[in-house]
């Protein structure tokens, strides 16, 4: 079994924070007028996916014999 575990007292906090960051990114992209805000908006939107990818890669590495 491979697990990327971090103990937390509020179980849903990381998921809800990621969801809120993604939503903030989508809104920032919509209201942005400059390239920097657009880049930040895109990064925030993609953050859950990037973290998900990182989790999978980390889990795979740990699972290797």
């Amino acid at each position: 079994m491979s697990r990327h575990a971090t103990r937390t007292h509020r179980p849903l906090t990381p998921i809800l924070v990621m969801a809120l960051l993604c939503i903030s990114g989508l809104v920032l992209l919509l209201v942005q007028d400059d390239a920097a805000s657009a880049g930040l908006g895109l990064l925030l939107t993609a953050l859950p996916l990037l973290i998900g990818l990182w989790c999978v890669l980390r889990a795979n590495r740990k699972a290797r014999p």
Partner: protein
Amino acid sequence: MTAATSRWFRANLWLHRWASLIATIPFLILCLTGTVLIFHEEIDHALGVVPTTTQVTDQPHRPLAEAVARVQAAYPDERIMSIGVDPVEHPGVQLIVTAPKGATGFDDAHLRFADLATGELIGATNPAKTLTGFLLELHAQWFLGPVGELIGALIALLVLISLLSGVVVYAPYVRRIAFGVLRRGRGRGARLLQLDLHNFIGAIVLGWALVVTATGFLLGFSTVAIGIWQMTELGELRAYAARMAPVDADNPPANADRAFAAATSTAPPGWRVGSLLYPGTDFSTPRHYTALLSGSSGVDARMVRVAIIDAATGEVALTPEMPAYLKAIFLSQPLHFGDYGGLLLKLLWTLCTWLTLFITANGAWLWWSRRHRRTLRADGISPEGTT
């Protein structure tokens, strides 16, 4: 009582299971058509739906009324419904919407194109008969018109319930892990891996999926919202216009260019006139043009302002503020289709759509698999090795 056996948990589990299962097939169709519609601009461009010209945007153009007269001469059985210019998406092209004589709605509309530089007609299309038009009608209306839109809103509501109840159901199991877990290895069935993938991917796409389903739910009420606006604010204007002499809707005394200029004079900095609806349509009075203005960047590019132009005098009659419910629907469109942040956002949108498509399908498979195992157990057959 543990979290996993509480009434609240079981109610959410029931909601998650049945809301998802009911929405599975329509949601699969929505995901597939939605994936194509993310790239509707690119597809329309590749298929040549809107002809292109070599004219640069700031070059002086022929009077708009010239192309209108050419369309009227070429299609004597049709009336002009609206004209438009879009220097960003279709530079150098004048868009002219026509419908059969006497029509007030856009159901049987044809889109005709003229070269702004010469006033010559350069093409035509029926928006409903293009690939993206066909898919949009399926995606947004299920080929059922406004009723189909409400069905779409219902599907979006089911998916929204499924997402929120899914978070509640996942909570007791995520207590010891931060973001998700993928359990694999010897002795662990495919079902466990699929369950972990379902939860893990669900957590990853949660924010995006909440936005897309909430905006999809709002868009399901777009025809209803426009109908309310037509009955209330436009209705009041129509009652006022009824006391005035109507104009010839085909050839109003103040032509398209005068109306365009009048509407442009009401535009705040950075705003421009995008469309001009002729008198006597579902969105104008028998006496007035309705001009639709849009901004050039940020939220303004997605919002619409209205200017009512007297078609007899060419003067601005009114610039009503759009109601909040219509503004919410205008803002929902980009947040639903993901066509506002360039190619990178479109690719991200596609990836999220496919991931959501995957968890929808594998969620249904998990339900079927569990049910199948229970049936086997009830029949005294070991389910091991069946998944």
